[in-house]
């Protein structure tokens, strides 16, 4: 039977007010999703009480890397300014898990204007370690600031070893308007 997959957002349009404690419980529960997307609208609906919870989890070294990444991504929807601060800090934290730092780059792509993004990610594009972080910076710039940054992306790719070029295919394709 043809039927659209029910979206959480459709169910949650009339979400009732929850206490701060209930919001915390719900945020922590939703970050346990395995293979279902939590729509952007849902994070917004949870309101301001969700913001410190997401921020706390995103920054916590005792949390699973994937959970921190989920929280940071959600924070980018719920509270862009707060997310920007945390994402910038994580991007510059060499001890943070790589997947969290990659999400920090992607979060900046969501919350910054193209001009701001170019400025924020240019150092990472040029010099971040390991190479995976540079490739995510390239992809994020190509996706969110193509006019401003594709020339620099191409420049950086030309400097990368050939063995790493597959890492940059997505960025290159985005700059070519192909993805």
């Amino acid at each position, binding site marked *: 039977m043809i039927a659209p997959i029910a979206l959480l957002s459709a*169910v949650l349009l009339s979400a009732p007010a929850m206490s701060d404690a209930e919001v915390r419980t719900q945020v922590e529960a939703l970050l346990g999703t*395995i293979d279902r997307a939590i729509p952007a609208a849902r994070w917004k609906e949870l309101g301001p009480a969700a913001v410190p919870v997401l921020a706390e989890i995103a920054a916590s070294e005792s949390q699973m890397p994937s959970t921190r990444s989920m929280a940071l*991504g959600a924070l980018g929807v719920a509270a862009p300014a707060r997310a920007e601060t945390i994402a910038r800090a994580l991007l510059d934290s060499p001890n943070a898990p790589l*997947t969290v730092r990659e999400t920090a780059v992607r979060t900046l792509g969501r919350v910054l204007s193209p001009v701001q993004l170019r400025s924020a990610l240019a150092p990472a594009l040029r010099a971040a370690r390991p190479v995976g972080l540079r490739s995510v910076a390239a992809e994020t710039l190509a996706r969110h600031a193509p006019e401003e940054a594709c020339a620099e992306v191409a420049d950086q790719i030309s400097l990368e070893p050939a063995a790493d070029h597959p*890492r940059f295919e997505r960025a290159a394709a985005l700059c070519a308007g*192909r993805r």
Partner: protein
Amino acid sequence: MRLTSIRSAAAALFLSLAAACGGGGGPTITVTVSPASPFTGVGQTQQFTATVVGTTDQTVTWTVQEGSAGGAISTGGLYTAPLLPGSFHVAATSVADASRSGTATVSVVPPPACTLETPQSSALPSAQVRQLGVHTVGETVTFTVPAGTGSVTIVQQGTEPLAPESVTYQGSLVANTVVPLTVKVGGVEFYNDNVDPTGDPAFWGTKNGIGSIFFDSASPWTGTMTVPNTTHMLEYVLDHGGVPAGTWSVVVNDYAEECKVIGSPTCVVGNGTLTYPPGKYDVKVLLKTGPVPAAGTVDVNFYLVTTQFTSTTASTSASVARMRQMLASYLARAGLTLGTVNFVDMPADVKARYAAGVNIDDTLPCGDMATILRMSNAENAISLFLVNSLVSSQGGMFTYVGVDGTIPGPSSVGGTVASGALVSAANLNFSSTPTSCQGAVNLSGCGADRTAYIAAHETGHFLGLYHVTESDGTRFDPVQDTPTCKLSLCAPAGKEVVNSDCTKNLTDPASPCGGGENLMFWLLNNALSTGTLSGQQSSILRANPLVR
């Protein structure tokens, strides 16, 4: 054979902008080419313009420095890229002073082209496989199921030219799912895709007809239906010593075909602007002799897309060993022994390409997910692809931890767009304290345990299990001995059901709110997810042809 992605590893995309050379005497002429560093696809065109400063003569001559291998350019600056990717240089030379020129570097990227190679083969013994050939939607295929057959799996693989990826139904984009329109045995209809279950599908219908087979999956290009997957059919198998015997007739179908019948504007095939060919599918039937065994063994192939491990390091890693141990413990709850575990190294360019994450937004045959799943071999093993991370650029977050090709998966058939599941290895080496990965399962502090749970969950999907209760609290699996968790009974309106809403029956046996601790609940909760499996869920797992 397999769907072949033609995506060159070459991504040499270089940029340079050469300024004009200097000269002596008179005003200096400079030539600038714009755009300075464009990207374009093979065979595509790109318009260049030249600006000449220092003379009134603006005319230039255009050349490609690499000659015809680098493409062609017209006298008006219209560049046509060659058919091979690479980095090439376009030069504009001043007519007023031929010593003055400017150049741009054009990066020519490869096309994301795919060719579907169907059919992919099954690794099961030929006696268990019925090859029914390629059929267009609407056609009926028949095959005979002997008495005492424990399970039947119908695998439909799309052929070129491909049917559309999606249909637009009541304004919503829906995957063009491949699913039989009807399944009949001896004239009795056991499945009809146009008859939707009402209420809990576990209790809907009968064991001798509609309601005995369930399907609810997004599954473009490759669709699989494994019987039994409901309580009704499990009871039928118990009563008769196997699934319905006799002549099965299956109408080949996809949602695009159903959409044509529904008609516009309620349903539109694709985006409504293009004409698509009708779906043509290779149909293969896998049989497993019955009855459903009380125990079994399942083998697992871990394909290492992740850059964290090679097959050598994986076989000696304490984290991986812990993950295996925990995966085995979850499977044991269904009477399954984790058998042979293989670690398969993916090529270096594949590891590099997906090192920064597998994008799950694009479900096209050339998309990340399908491209990876198509790398699975035809083997009698679950194909689990360990990836660094699963990412999405849409929705409310970027990160996912597991995703299955389809429910159920095409067991034993490798190389299709749905031949396996992807599991994030982002947590695999994580340990919140030095002792977090010692002793009992620790889903909050031991990444190997969490990864094992997710791998077991996706394995459950691949072998035919649905979420016991979906997030909206209105949709349930077709299994009667898994508790449900109705939103209307278990959680405040306007909120999704979460584990804590759905474990109330553990302290109050009279509560109708259960299933939150089940392996197939849609959420993982550090404290509440014990990974239980019911007796009937376990039977469905053991009935799958991958279980030996």
